[in-house]
C-alpha cells in the first residue's frame, strides 16, 4: 500500500520544501551563507586529497566486465581495448595500441606492453578472450551477454533453442601474448567503438571460475581500484583509490568515497548540507542547483532522445498524419517551460555527443502550427479519439500532458487524451503491438555513434523499436553502412543518409535531447562527463 504513495510524495516533497524555506526565512535570515563553505568535503589532512561522490545503489552492484552497467564507476575500474574521450566522444587507444582490419570482419588488435591488473598480473590477449568467453556463456547470465553476439561462434554458445554446442567463441584467437585476432559474424566498421565499452574489458586469470564473488570483489585494470578489495551487500560507502602501476594517465585523487543512496532523491539534499562533493542531477534538482550554485554545475548531454513514436502497425497513422502531429509540437516551449532549459529541442534523431548526430535532418521537427493544421486537413483530418501513452514517471507525464494540449489546440483534435502505464506493462504492450496511439519514450545509445541509436530505434526486431517500424530500404542501407563502408567516416555518412531516409517518413517525432548536470563543490575541478553522464573519475582533481 505504501508503494502507491510514492509518486505523490514527490509533489508533497515540493510542499515540504516550500514549508521549510518559509520556516527558515522567518527563523534565521542569515543562515544561507555558510552552505557553500561546507562543501569542501570532510577530506583528511596531510596533503591527501579526497572527495565524496553521491550515487544511486544501482551503480555499485556488479563489476564483472559482462555484468557492468557501463557507468562512470565501471570506466574507473576498467580500461577496455579502446577508449572514447570524455566530452568529445573521440575514439582513442586503451589497452590496445592498434586495431586494423582488411575486410572489417577479421580484426587484428595489438595490445600495449606493460598493462597490469590491480593484483599486478599482466593484461594479455588471453585476458580478453577469457572475459568475452565468460560473458558469452549463457549459464553465467550476465547482462552483457547479448553484446557478444557480433563475434563468430556466439550462436553456438547461445542457441535460440536447445543446449549450447560450444563453450568458447570460435572467432577469438590468441596470436601471441599481445596480439588478438577477432573474427566477427559479419563485417562491422564500428567494432573499435563497440570494444570501448567496459563489457569488453579483460578478466584476470582464473576469475571466470567464480564470477559471482568477482562481481563484488573485482580485480580491474583501470585507473582506480577498490581500497578494501571490494564491497558488501549493505555498504553505504565504498572507497576507490588510485592504482599505482596504472599504465595510462594516472588518477589524481587519493581517495574517492562512493556514497551509495537507495533513494536518489536525498542526494541533492546531502549536497546542500555539504556532505557530498559531486553528484549527477537532473529534473527539478538540477534547476535548483543551477540557481544555488551557478558556477558549480557542468552540463551533461545524455546520448539519448525523447521522442513520440507512432505505431507503424496502425493504419490511421499515415506518414502525413505523423508529420502533422510532429509539426504541431512546440519543442522549445516544452524545453524552456517544463524542463527549465535542461534539454535541447531535437532537430534530428541523435544529439551531437554521438558521432554523426546533431544534424538538422527532420523537417517536421520545426514547430509550425498552421502548416500542421493544413497538413492534417490535406491528409483527411482526424476522426475520433486519440490516446497518447507513456510510462509512469513525473517528468514524462508532465511533458506528455503538454504535448496532448498542443495537439488539441494546434490540430483541433478534441478527443485527445493521454495515459501513463507502468514501464514493464508499456514495453510488454509494445512487444505485442497493442498500443493504439503515439507513445512518449526514451531511447539511449549503447556506444557513441548515430548508428547505435538508429539501429535500436528503427530496425525491426530491436528492443527499442517500440513502433514496429520496418523499412527494408532503411535496414539494408544501415547494414551496408557497417559492412561495406571503407572507413568510420564513410560509415557515418551512410548512416546519416539512411536516417534521413527514415525520418522523411516520420516514424517517430523526435522531441528533445535530455540534459543533466554534474554539481560539484568548489574544491573539485576537472569535472568532465563520461559517455553515460557521470563524471570521468580519472580526470577529477581536488585542490
Amino acid at each position, binding site marked *: 500500500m505504501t508503494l502507491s504513495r510514492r509518486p505523490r510524495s514527490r509533489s508533497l516533497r515540493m510542499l515540504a520544501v516550500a514549508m521549510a524555506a518559509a520556516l527558515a526565512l522567518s527563523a534565521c535570515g542569515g543562515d544561507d551563507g555558510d552552505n557553500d563553505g561546507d562543501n569542501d568535503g570532510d577530506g583528511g589532512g596531510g596533503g591527501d586529497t579526497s572527495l565524496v561522490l553521491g550515487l544511486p545503489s544501482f551503480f555499485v552492484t556488479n563489476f564483472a566486465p559482462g555484468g557492468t552497467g557501463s557507468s562512470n564507476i565501471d570506466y574507473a575500474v576498467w580500461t577496455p581495448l579502446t577508449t572514447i574521450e570524455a566530452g568529445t566522444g573521440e575514439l582513442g587507444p586503451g589497452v590496445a595500441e592498434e586495431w586494423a582490419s582488411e575486410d572489417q570482419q577479421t580484426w587484428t588488435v595489438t595490445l600495449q606492453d606493460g598493462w597490469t591488473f590491480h593484483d599486478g598480473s599482466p593484461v594479455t590477449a588471453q585476458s580478453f578472450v577469457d572475459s568475452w568467453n565468460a560473458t558469452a556463456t*549463457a549459464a553465467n547470465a550476465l*547482462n552483457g*551477454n*547479448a553484446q557478444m553476439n557480433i563475434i563468430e561462434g556466439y550462436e553456438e554458445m547461445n542457441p535460440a533453442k536447445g543446449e549450447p554446442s560450444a563453450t568458447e567463441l570460435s572467432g577469438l584467437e590468441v596470436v601471441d601474448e599481445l596480439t588478438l585476432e577477432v573474427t566477427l559474424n559479419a563485417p562491422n566498421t564500428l567494432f573499435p567503438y563497440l570494444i570501448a565499452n567496459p563489457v569488453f574489458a579483460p578478466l584476470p586469470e582464473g576469475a571466470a571460475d567464480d564470477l559471482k564473488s568477482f562481481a563484488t570483489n573485482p580485480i580491474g585494470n583501470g585507473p582506480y581500484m577498490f581500497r578494501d578489495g571490494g564491497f*558488501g551487500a549493505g555498504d553505504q560507502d565504498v572507497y576507490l583509490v588510485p592504482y599505482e602501476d596504472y599504465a595510462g594517465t594516472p588518477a589524481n585523487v587519493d581517495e574517492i568515497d562512493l556514497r551509495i543512496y537507495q533513494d536518489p532523491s536525498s542526494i541533492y539534499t546531502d549536497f546542500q548540507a555539504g556532505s557530498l562533493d559531486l553528484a549527477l542531477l537532473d529534473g527539478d534538482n538540477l534547476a535548483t542547483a543551477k540557481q544555488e550554485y551557478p558556477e558549480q554545475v557542468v552540463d551533461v548531454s545524455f546520448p539519448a532522445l525523447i521522442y513520440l513514436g507512432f505505431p507503424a502497425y496502425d493504419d490511421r497513422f499515415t506518414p502525413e498524419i505523423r508529420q502533422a502531429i510532429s509539426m504541431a509540437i512546440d519543442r522549445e516551449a516544452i524545453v524552456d517551460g517544463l524542463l527549465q532549459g535542461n534539454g535541447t529541442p531535437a532537430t534530428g534523431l541523435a544529439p551531437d555527443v554521438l558521432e554523426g548526430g546533431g544534424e538538422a535532418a527532420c523537417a517536421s521537427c520545426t514547430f509550425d502550427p498552421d502548416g500542421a493544421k493544413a497538413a492534417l486537413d490535406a491528409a483527411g483530418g482526424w476522426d475520433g479519439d486519440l490516446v497518447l501513452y507513456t510510462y509512469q514517471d513525473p517528468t514524462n507525464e508532465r511533458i506528455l500532458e503538454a504535448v496532448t494540449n498542443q495537439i488539441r489546440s494546434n490540430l483541433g483534435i478534441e478527443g485527445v487524451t493521454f495515459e501513463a502505464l507502468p514501464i*514493464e506493462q508499456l514495453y510488454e504492450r509494445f512487444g505485442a503491438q497493442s498500443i493504439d496511439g503515439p507513445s512518449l519514450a526514451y531511447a539511449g545509445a549503447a556506444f557513441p555513434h548515430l548508428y547505435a541509436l538508429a539501429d535500436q530505434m528503427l530496425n525491426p526486431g530491436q*528492443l527499442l523499436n517500440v513502433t514496429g517500424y520496418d523499412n527494408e530500404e532503411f535496414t539494408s542501407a544501415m547494414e551496408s553502412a557497417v559492412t561495406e563502408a571503407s572507413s568510420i567516416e564513410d560509415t557515418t555518412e551512410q548512416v546519416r543518409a539512411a536516417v534521413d531516409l527514415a525520418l522523411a517518413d516520420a516514424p517517430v517525432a523526435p522531441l528533445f535531447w535530455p540534459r543533466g548536470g554534474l554539481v560539484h563543490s568548489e574544491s573539485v575541478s576537472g569535472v568532465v562527463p563520461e559517455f553515460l553522464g557521470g563524471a570521468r573519475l580519472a580526470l577529477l582533481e581536488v585542490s
Partner: protein
Amino acid sequence: MLLFVVRRVLGMVPLVLGATFVIFAAVYALPGDPIRAIAGPTAEISPATRAALTEEYHLDEPLLVQYWYYLTGVLRGDLGVDLRGVPVYDLVEAAWPVSLLLGLTAWALMAVVGVGLGTVAAMRRGGAFDWAVLGLTTVIVGVPYFVVAYVLQIVVGVQLGWLPSSGIREGWPTSYVLPAACLALFGLPELSRLTRASIIENRQADFVDTATAKGLAPRVILVRHILRTSLVPVVSVLGLALGFLMSGAILVEGIFNVPGLGFTLFNGIRQQNGPVVVGISTLMVFIFLAINLLVDIVCGLLDPRISLVRDG
C-alpha cells in the same frame, strides 16, 4: 507459563505456513517478467541466458513446487539467492542491525514521550496542558509523516546543520535521531490518547478508592496502582508498534537513506526481485510473531487478572 509459551509457539506453525504462502503466492502473481526486471526494460536478453536463469530460479515450475523449494530452504536456514546472485541472507544480515537500532530508538522515544504526555494530560484533565496535547496530536495525525520527514531533513539537516541530513555513517545517536523521531511521531498520538483514556478510567476504579481509603500517598497510588493497570492496553499497542518499527519503515528509511530492512524490501519490490521480497517478508512475519508472544507474556505479568495458562 512454559506450557503457555510452548502452546503459543506450536500455534504459530500454521500461521507461519499460511503467511509465507500468501506472501509467496502474491509475489508469484506479480505482473511482469522477473528476468526482464533484472535486465531492465530495454536490455537485450539472449534466449540461452533466459533459459539458464529460468532453470536456476525454477521460474518455470508451478507455484506449489516453487513454494516447496523455498520452504525447505528456509527450514535449512537458507533464505534463497536474489536475482542478482546475492544471498538474501547477506542482505538481511547487513540490514537487520540497522533496522533494529532505528526501531528501538524510535520505540523508546515514542514510549517515553507518548506515555509521559498521556499521563500528565490525564492527571490534569481539562487543563491547558491536556488541550495542548490534544491539539498537538491532532496536528500530527493530520500531517503525513513523510512531509514531516522532508521538513525535518531540510530544516534540521540542511538549513541548521545540527544533524546529518541522511545516512547512518555518523552512527548512533546522531544519525538515528531524525529518522527515529519521524517514526516515533507515527504512533505518538494513539499512544498518548490511549494512556490518557486508560488512566482516566482507572482513576475512578474501585481499587483506587480502596488505596486512597487506606491512606496511601498519591504518588504511590499513581505509580503502583493506576499506572500499572493502565499500561496493559498501552503495552499491547507498544508491542505491536515495536513490530512495525523494527520490521522497517519503508518511507522513512528511504528518505533518510537508512539501509535497513524496509528499504531492502522496497528495492526488492521495485526490481521485482521475488526472493528478496519473500525472504524479508518472512523475516518480518517471524519478528511480528515473536514480539506478539513477548507482549502477551508482559501483559500477563502486568495484570494479575490475565492468566497465561487458561487464556492461552
